[in-house]
């Protein structure tokens, strides 16, 4: 199967590889997929709590080239967006940008799930924190 140039570019030069401190209150972590299925994505965002803007995004992915490219692209798109804007990133946007073939649409779905999971995690942390602040 031939890969699109954009997939190859992300595979060869993945953007924003790495990990953020998952214990920080303003870091949201999403991990989706399973080793048995052949792909696991970990996506993290660091949010400026004042502005709600995602200032840093990192990923690590176990999976095929398209999965790596999808998550790499997702981190690029996340940076600079507000959390609410980020929720509007759709898997179809990733499919179009990377020209993914039908058998690889699954990879883009996983990337969208990872974004949502990271944002959920961030929101959950913020929620707990404001609750505990109220309790004090």
């Amino acid at each position, binding site marked *: 199967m031939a*890969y699109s140039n954009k997939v190859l570019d992300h595979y060869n030069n993945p953007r924003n590889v790495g990990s953020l401190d998952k214990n920080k209150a303003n870091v949201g972590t999403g991990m989706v997929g399973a080793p*048995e299925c*052949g792909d696991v994505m970990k996506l993290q965002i660091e949010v400026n709590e004042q502005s709600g803007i995602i200032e840093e995004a990192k990923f*690590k992915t*176990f999976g095929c080239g398209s999965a*790596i490219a999808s998550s790499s692209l997702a981190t690029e798109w996340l940076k600079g967006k507000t959390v609410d804007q980020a929720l509007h990133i759709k898997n179809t946007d990733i499919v179009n940008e990377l020209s993914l073939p039908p058998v690889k649409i699954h990879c883009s*779905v996983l990337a969208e799930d990872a974004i949502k*999971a990271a944002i959920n995690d961030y929101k959950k942390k913020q929620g707990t924190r404001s609750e505990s602040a109220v309790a004090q």
Partner: protein
Amino acid sequence: MKLPIYFDNHATTRVDPRVVEAMLPYFGEHFGNAASRNHSFGWEAEEAVEKARKQIAELVGATSKEIVFTSGATESNNLAIKGVAEMYAERGNHIITAATEHKAVLDTCKRLEKEGYRVTYLPVQGNGLVDLDMLREAITDKTILVTVMYANNEIGVLQPIAEIGKICKEKGVLFHTDGVQAVGKVPVNVVKDGIDLMSITAHKIYGPKGVGALYVRRKSPRVQLTAQMDGGGHERGMRSGTLNVPGIVGLGEACAICNREMAEESKRLQGMRDYLRKKLETELDEVFINGTMEHHLPHNLNMSFAYVEGESLLMGINDIAVSSGSACTSATLEPSYVLKALGVGDDLAHTSIRFGLGRFNTQEEVEYVANRMIETVRKLRELSPLYEMAKEGVDLSKVQWAAH
């Protein structure tokens, strides 16, 4: 050294120039039909076919008359299994095979099941080998055929063929083996191994595609087959169809070369294979061999590179041709059923790579492949959340994965 490098010699092999040379006249001046009995064109073709028959027979310890030409191993497997099932239907309806067989055997058996035959699919042990006691117990008075491959095309393990042959003889059951990956690579002898039927193909032994053979024993016992193709009654009625003379000449020459050079060639390939294995095991942690190395083809290596998905690995070594057991590289999107049968978890099956060395590979290429593999695995592990977790001491089998 020329790129890309071909390390996928279980899939197919390059035709040896000596084989091409031998074939060429049979496209040109000797173009006759081997079944033309009344002119020299036919006689020349027939002579060439009989020479090839002898070359094949010599490589596997058979006699010429026991070689039936086919279009390849898929046809040979179909002819052997369906032909025996039909011919011996009155004697019984039970066939025994193994879970790690090639699809040409498994799907043939499945077809027969639909027609009312009973098939036992023997599981294999963790090392990839059939359990002989289990085989013995599976044979009933209704069993007519046991079909177990000589060498596995993915993991390269050699089944205990001579022992299986002995058990079949004791029990009076016919024994077929898919010899595609073993013939020409390791010594195969149908007499010593107690084989009654054996499938062979040319393109795995540096011959052309589209031609193969089926060995059919003529004495003790004399094996009979119901033809699966109706027509002119070629090949003593077992396989109708005008013989592919150039192809057959190529198969014969390929066998003759293997017969002369196998001992030396397998030693050379094994040396390179062992070097590759050692280098990968020394430079990389958490790599696992699939299938026992004790009973193994000299030119095969199947390894799992934990925490690195196979297709992404292939993408990183795109100037090297190898295969992966990863789901993403298969048409069915399922990881290798062979590795599954060995009890290799899906997580590791996704990370497996099959190296198949061949006649035209060099030590320089092995060096290059090893270095590219090491570099790519390291790079992808940097990217792998699983490797990071494993290094942090997380037990991945205990993690609640958000499977999708």
